[in-house]
């Protein structure tokens, strides 16, 4: 008997949509050319890449020539941070970012610090939303870049980019956003939010893994991260991942045409899941602001539940979800996002992220609502019994008294 599998971890990755797969497959075999080649094969590949660039730019309300393809969100973020800082003039340089960024930004910023760049990490309150005033106050005369994520990967909270964009423009500072968790979930308009750089990744919106894009506003001074050929207008060398780029383009096109319906449908399912959990399971709360969120994400704290065991127990019952970011699972440190929004380490370890997607059905949610309360009850019963039983104390207990 095969178990029912419900995938509620779409912020980690998503399945490739059938139309995306169809669009990609010719570029693996028949149209395999190198886009830099002069001949017919190369021209076919080049044409496909430029079509995809068009598709991506439309999702962002950008010009096609402002979109550079990369290997994914991490590379886009790193290119933005290192590329802007390196291209900037001046003896001392300063970057403003937030405490809830993805590690692709946070660890890049820390690497910049080791190279002598000053970085300010703006704090956020329990809402999980940064205050634009705090961003403005962090700015110094030598600030060369402001990097604030669009939607948080763990909480789904949407940051006030329009206000921050106005501030950046007014102070004449480059503004980057990691929009990996926003693209395809909420409308994006690079003019409205006045960003100069924007990172996105294909596999978060039903595209393939290993490909992403970096929007770079015309006129932005940016050094490349890698050196090689003069691909992507000198912003990113390397033979293009043609099938991946085609997939990203198609995924963006689908996302753009279905954005409103899709958001409404997924949002209703997320609300059903969230309300179902909050109403049937005592000791549960939503982490972060509930109003300004991507429609697919619910981060819920379950009191007296060990998140690590919870995720495993749910997986063994066919439900896939996660504690914090996929990249930090297995780590002992509680999620930096949850601690940044004021959760204690214990609370952070009992928080679970459910993230829905294009293929989540109403039946999936009903199944999850059948399983989750039972698993929580089981976990709490065992935790209570174990703490009630006097712990077996031998060597270690004796050592403590000694």
């Amino acid at each position: 008997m095969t178990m029912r599998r419900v995938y509620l971890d779409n912020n980690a990755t998503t399945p490739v949509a059938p139309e995306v797969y169809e669009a990609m497959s010719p570029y693996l075999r028949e149209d395999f050319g190198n886009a830099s080649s002069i001949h017919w094969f190369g021209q076919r590949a080049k044409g496909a890449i430029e079509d995809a660039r068009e598709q991506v730019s439309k999702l962002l309300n950008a010009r096609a020539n402002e979109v550079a393809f990369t290997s994914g969100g991490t590379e886009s973020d790193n290119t933005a941070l290192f590329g802007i800082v390196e291209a900037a003039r001046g003896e001392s340089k300063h970057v403003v970012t937030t405490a809830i960024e993805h590690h692709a930004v946070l660890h890049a910023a820390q690497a910049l610090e080791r190279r002598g760049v000053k970085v300010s990490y703006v704090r956020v309150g329990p809402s999980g939303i940064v205050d634009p005033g705090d961003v403005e106050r962090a700015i110094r005369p030598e600030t060369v870049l402001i990097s604030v994520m669009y939607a948080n990967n763990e909480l789904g909270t949407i940051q006030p980019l329009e206000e921050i964009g106005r501030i950046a423009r007014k102070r004449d500072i480059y503004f980057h956003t990691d929009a990996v968790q926003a693209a395809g979930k909420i409308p994006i308009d690079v003019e409205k939010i006045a960003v100069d750089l924007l990172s996105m990744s294909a596999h978060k919106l039903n595209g393939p893994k290993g490909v992403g894009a970096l929007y770079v506003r015309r006129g932005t001074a940016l050094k490349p991260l890698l050196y090689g050929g003069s691909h992507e207008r000198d912003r990113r060398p390397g033979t293009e991942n043609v099938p991946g780029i085609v997939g990203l383009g198609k995924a963006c096109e689908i996302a753009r045409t279905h954005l409103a319906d899709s958001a409404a449908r997924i949002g209703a399912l997320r609300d059903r899941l969230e309300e179902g959990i909050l109403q049937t399971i005592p000791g549960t709360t939503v982490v972060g602001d509930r109003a300004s969120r991507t429609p697919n994400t619910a981060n819920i704290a379950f009191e007296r539940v060990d998140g690590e065991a919870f995720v495993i127990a749910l997986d063994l019952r066919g439900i896939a979800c996660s504690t914090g970011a996929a990249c930090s699972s297995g780590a002992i440190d509680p999620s930096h996002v949850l601690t940044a929004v004021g959760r204690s380490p214990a609370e952070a370890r009992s928080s679970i992220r459910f993230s829905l997607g294009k293929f989540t059905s109403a039946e999936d949610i009903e199944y999850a609502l059948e399983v989750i309360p039972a698993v929580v009850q089981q976990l709490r019963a065992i935790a209570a019994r174990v703490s009630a039983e006097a712990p077996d104390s031998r060597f270690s207990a004796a050592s403590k008294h000694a």
Partner: protein
Amino acid sequence: MTIAVAMSGGVDSSTAAALLAQNNSFAAGSENVVGLTMQLWNQRRLPSLLSAESEGPEGRGRCCSLDDVYDARRVANFLGLPYYLVNFERRFEDRVVRPFVESYLRGETPIPCSACNTEIKFAQFVETARQIGADRIATGHYARIRRDEAAGRYRLYAGVDSGRDQSYFLFGLTQDQLARALFPLGELTKQEVRAIARDRKLPVAEKPDSQEICFVASGNYKQFIDAYLEEQGPASRPVAQDARDNELSKGEIVSSNGQVLGEHNGLHHFTVGQRKGLGFATGEPLYVIALEPARNRVIVGKDPELFHRRMLVREVNWICAANEGETLDARVKIRNRHVAAPALIEALTGNEAAVEFREPQRAITPGQAAVFYRDEEVLGGGCISAVLDGPAI
């Protein structure tokens, strides 16, 4: 029934997992076996030890390294088992590493593996297993468990491979823990285990055995303790604070008749029975015969002075039901490589036991486990707290 199998990435636990996944005397099918790896210690924590580690023998005693987790995951995948990494680092440090260090600083030679078994593998691991829906756990230990219906108890026996037997480290298991545990390798020899691993083409079939204490990668305990105390800094616990201060931890090395022979730089650098590293040369071989924490002294003497007949054992766990005041005629093993020796064991109040060997035993070492055997059965055991008599010359 769901079984959680503890997978370290080594050949033993991998073979145990393979037997459970494919041998229907244990489980109905692979759907019911779950592989878990316990992340216990982060080797990168004490960077000063890393160079010593890389010089060590390849593949030995490197606990929780990325390579071992990689191997465990690969085996689980190969066997088609769901597999998870669970993080017990905090508890491992509290219940195993810190007590290990403190015991050394008190002049003992501790044995962290039994504490790890009772506090981690058969406590925290069992709890996590139960939380994820597994009622039984399995490990790659060489030991056997039998249910004694008449007595209504579980009994623990040595593994059939006497060279590999690990029952010495398992004396602390409670009845509930024994009821939940499966040791699929208990009836097998190491050679058979290797053969099974090869036969099933397990990816780790040729991996060398791990040795030494898992979290002390280099095998150099003294170096580990120094590095750990350094890391903990001046804010660490009082006992550690004393030992950090080199001047304070320095003490005298004296002969058994009280003559001062030299100076030492901390009791944790010494073990009963040790001959090398005393820091001075004498005409005849001298050994550490005792450590005296109260006066911070290392006592040295001649080989015969290492032999004693009586000792006190604390924190005794009885697997067989022993009554207070009862005296058992059994064999007692005082370290892993020791051949269990005949002795009378008296069960005292407060989970203590007094042991009197028929023949004097060499280097009875406080901190090591004393495990009581009748033939192959483990009756119980505890921690050696003191040698009771003078040298049995």
